[in-house]
């Protein structure tokens, strides 16, 4: 009986601690693997500086590639309201930054010299005229910084070019690798 009183809670404790650790490990490794193996892409960006409750101060990064002209969307628009993910093909430009060459509501095939990034799900409502631009997120719009350190990035935004290097895996998920001002690295992300 006294044995059972120890075993049951101990078993429960081991089980929940293990499950929670595995979950955290999965979260970490799914991101680290993108940094390790993903294709590298450099994007142009502008930051601002808010905070969230549990993860602290962060810088909002918005990208040139977040706004996609409708003329670059191939394969047409959906006829009904849907929750869609846009496949966006990026190609390197002469200035070193990557830009949108093509986008589609269906998956795009891989092509030499290009990288396909998948947008976060968004709600698309069809209208008689297609919109001039589609604004999408890629899940790399936030960069968490130590408390109070968002300012330098904010100040850099006004006078300098901010570049963000991301790595993209085969499924199109992007992960921030480095943030640089005028080509000088400011933050470099370790794997773990």
């Amino acid at each position: 009986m006294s044995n059972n009183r120890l075993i049951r809670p101990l078993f429960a404790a081991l089980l929940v601690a293990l499950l929670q650790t595995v979950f955290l490990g999965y979260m970490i490794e799914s991101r680290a693997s993108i940094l390790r193996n993903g294709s590298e892409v450099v994007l142009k960006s502008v930051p601002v500086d808010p905070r969230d409750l549990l993860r602290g101060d962060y810088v909002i990064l918005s990208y040139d590639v977040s706004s996609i002209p409708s003329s670059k969307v191939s394969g047409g628009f959906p006829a009904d309201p849907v929750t869609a993910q846009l496949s966006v093909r990026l190609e390197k430009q002469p200035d070193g930054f990557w830009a949108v060459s093509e986008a589609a509501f269906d998956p795009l095939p891989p092509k030499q010299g290009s990288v396909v990034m998948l947008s976060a799900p968004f709600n698309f409502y069809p209208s008689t005229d297609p919109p001039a631009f589609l604004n999408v997120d890629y899940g790399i719009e936030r960069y968490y910084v130590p408390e109070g350190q968002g300012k330098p990035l904010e100040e850099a935004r006004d006078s300098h070019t901010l570049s963000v290097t991301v790595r993209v895996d085969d499924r199109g998920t992007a992960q921030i690798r480095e943030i640089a001002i005028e080509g000088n690295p400011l933050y470099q992300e370790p794997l773990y």
Partner: protein
Amino acid sequence: MYRGRIEKDFRHWVSMGMLDARAADAMLAEYDARPSVFSAGRVLLILAAVLLGSAILLLVAANWEAIPRLARIVGIVALIWTFYLSAALCFARGFSAIGAALLVLATMCFGGAIALVGQMYHLSGDAADALLAWFAAACLVAFLFRSAAVTVLCGLLAWALFGQLIFDNDAYFGGNGSLYFIPALVVIVIALVRYTQAGVARHLAYLLALAWLGWLQLEISGGWLAFALFALGLVAFLLASLTASPLHRLARETGAAPAFYSFALAVMGLAVLHGEVNGLAQEIAIGATTLAVALGGIVLAGRVNGAVRFLGYAVFSVETLYLASETLGSILGTSGFFLISGLVVGLIAWLVIRLEKRLSAKPALKEA
């Protein structure tokens, strides 16, 4: 609360010679020894755990560079293991209060760990998913340890998830329908409440159900839904309060909550319907129905359910004021409406008093 009132009544009965003083003391001692009874020490322990947990959550949010990133993640996972294992040891040794506090602390740490990983890899726009994972983990802990304290945490996390989804607010039929799964959270929390006997968390679940139905009304809008909410609330209230109902015993076991929240739902439906009606006939119908529902609640459940009684009084007063200020057609017409209502209610009161006298006379006869 109940403890204070019953002690007062016991003293009264003892002074009247109806109850032996020793029996009264023994009954109070039995009540105080129940595990569900309020204990200042236990509550303070849990609150201490909440404060410590918050300290850890904010330490994560501060993103403090003095602790290297890898040390942070290893540290927080170590805390999770330490707290769960210590909780298990406390339960085995019989220190259940400390065990419950440690479980709360450990489960809060897991939320902090999710936030930490999100911060490390700059994940954006995933707050609802993170809360869902946290909620699921808390539910598993509450179930495995049969912990009332963690069940309360589950109730709060369900609310947080609801709030986050409302904040993201891109739900519509056929699209991102995460908000339509909130009733599942309510069912899970209520099941946990019954299993772990966490009385307080029940209100979190019922209030969440009410809030969700309120959101549904705003989202879809339309008189038919308001009417459906009213009808659903009324039927549930009758099922919970009428002695003839098959669910009556089950509802009474869980206290005043089922009757009160179903009554509140009916009132909510009626409140929305007030905005939907037009034309004198409909206005009179809705006004009369509201007054009838308020009085019906007081008559049917008022005696055993103080919460329903006071909500009934409140609805009755507000509706009377509303009708008086809105006026049904003309001031004279409203006056006529109140005249007829007054006569009808007076007649019912007379009938109810006679009925109550007859009912209370019966047991007396049996004893004699």
